[in-house]
């Protein structure tokens, strides 16, 4: 069965303290792995799509990487406005819907 596990569940950082969020997955063939950001009371906001192992993508203070078993979202020198829940999702080979993890709730303190 396709599964997505995110860790940690919650992470508290001081402003400027870099860290990484993990997304481990087991799928019957991976077509794509997606990262979204979700603020309280809002819908998920698209960040990145990764297609194959070894791929990396960057946007401002965020960098996403992908291996055959997991993806990392690296946050460099975070700011309080980076506080949000970060969701990872995979698209298996056999269908068009996305399977989401439970998310990592990130809090960045000034």
């Amino acid at each position, binding site marked *: 069965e396709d599964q*997505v596990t995110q860790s940690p569940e919650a992470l508290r950082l001081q402003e400027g303290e870099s860290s990484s969020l993990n997304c481990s997955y087991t799928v019957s063939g991976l*077509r*794509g792995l*997606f990262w*979204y950001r979700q603020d309280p*009371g*809002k*819908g*998920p*906001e*698209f960040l990145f*799509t990764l*297609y194959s192992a070894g791929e990396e993508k960057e946007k401002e203070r965020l960098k996403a990487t992908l291996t055959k078993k997991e993806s990392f979202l690296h946050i460099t020198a975070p700011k309080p406005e980076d506080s949000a829940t970060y*969701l990872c*999702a995979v*698209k298996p080979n056999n*269908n*068009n*819907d*996305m*399977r*989401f*993890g*439970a*998310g990592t709730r990130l809090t960045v303190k000034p």
Partner: protein
Amino acid sequence: GAGVSQTPSNKVTEKGKYVELRCDPISGHTALYWYRQSLGQGPEFLIYFQGTGAADDSGLPNDRFFAVRPEGSVSTLKIQRTERGDSAVYLCASSLTAGSLDTQYFGPGTRLTVL
């Protein structure tokens, strides 16, 4: 341009009542998805449409849930005989096509509370 919109933003109903939730996708997007998100969890797939037809409804939890997209644009998720366990945020997303890697863009969600 305008993103995905959903109405109402909040819906409070009583157990046993019928509710309809509406989704307006991004103009020109042919694929439309419904998800349900419970507190502290990621979105859970319900159903997706390619054009007017439901291409995959395997995520609908039971026959009380039904969705339509009669003209290939706006979609309505319908829930009959609501139960307290149906309380959640219902999210809609759309993508340009149903192509395997097309990005799904989400609306703000409808928060459904069943008393």
